[in-house]
């Protein structure tokens, strides 16, 4: 299909007080046409654009975790209804019909997978890492999670209960890692830096503050 930038005079009348670029006019014309065909609505486009503009990766999730660490009431809301709790930060998404936050503790470690494909809570974690989508991770984290975590450098004591959460299109999971010791004096912004993406998937722990000191 060829397209050679035919220059149509769209409608012939001059009605734009401020100059619009050719691209802008084309985008408007195409949107109007697609809307007339019932293929798009302004509201649907707005929703998509808003999500994509907020695509800032795992720091969204890190902010949620840091808040949960410093604010017990927020943590309670997060664990009760993850979707509503992240919405308090403006993190929403059609993919987050249900976001379930699961909390690590000295006795329990949570890890997230999508055995079927690569469902992932992207409005809070950004793009999934390649390994998350890989067949070996998807299969093995279920069959031999401790071995997989060991390969990530995470050795869990035998007495720690390991819970593997399988994501679906409807339910996505966010791991709330344990807050490292010795971080009582840190601000929320400082705490955010201790929360790497993998800690919110469950293949790592939060970063110890001394290992950040450089």
């Amino acid at each position, binding site marked *: *299909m*060829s*397209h050679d930038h035919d220059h149509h005079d769209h409608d012939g009348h001059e009605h734009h007080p401020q100059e619009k*670029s050719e*691209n*802008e006019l*084309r*985008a*408007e014309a*195409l*949107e109007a*046409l*697609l809307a*007339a*065909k*019932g*293929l*798009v*609505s302004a509201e*649907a*486009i*707005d*929703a*998509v*654009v808003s*999500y*994509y*503009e907020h*695509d*800032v*990766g795992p720091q969204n999730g890190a902010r949620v975790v840091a808040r949960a660490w410093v604010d017990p009431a927020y943590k309670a809301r997060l664990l009760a209804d993850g979707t509503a709790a992240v919405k308090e930060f403006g993190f929403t998404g*059609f*993919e987050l019909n249900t976001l379930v936050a699961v909390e690590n503790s000295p006795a329990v470690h949570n890890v997230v997978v999508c055995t079927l494909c*690569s469902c*992932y809570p*992207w409005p809070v974690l*950004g*793009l*999934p890492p390649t390994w998350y*989508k890989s067949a070996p991770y998807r299969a093995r984290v279920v069959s031999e999670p401790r071995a997989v975590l060991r390969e990530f450098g995470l050795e869990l004591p035998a007495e720690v209960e390991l819970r593997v959460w399988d994501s679906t299109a409807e339910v996505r999971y966010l791991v709330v890692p344990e807050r490292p010791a010795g971080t009582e004096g840190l601000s929320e912004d400082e705490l955010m830096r201790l929360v790497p993406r993998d800690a919110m998937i469950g293949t790592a722990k939060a970063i110890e503050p001394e290992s950040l000191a450089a």
Partner: protein
Amino acid sequence: MSQLADLDSALAESAPLPRSNGELVFDEPWQGRALGMGVVALERADISLVEFSGFLADAVARHGYDPDEPAATAYYAAWLDALEACLASRGVSGVVG
């Protein structure tokens, strides 16, 4: 609804979305609209992102490179071309590719 992750992976090899430090780049608002209308229209027309990515790669190549044109402007201009061509190929009437 298409996930951004799906979009990224579908376009990764042919024509990745313009990003800076991981974040999507839009030089002007129409570019975000173009992305949004594409995502919505492709889904409603039941056209896969992979199929679209072929049209997009062609459009990007045809658009060419102009050092004076910002990268996101060039990309989303090609995106509009690709969307028109892709929908026209499916016989969405009134769309001339």
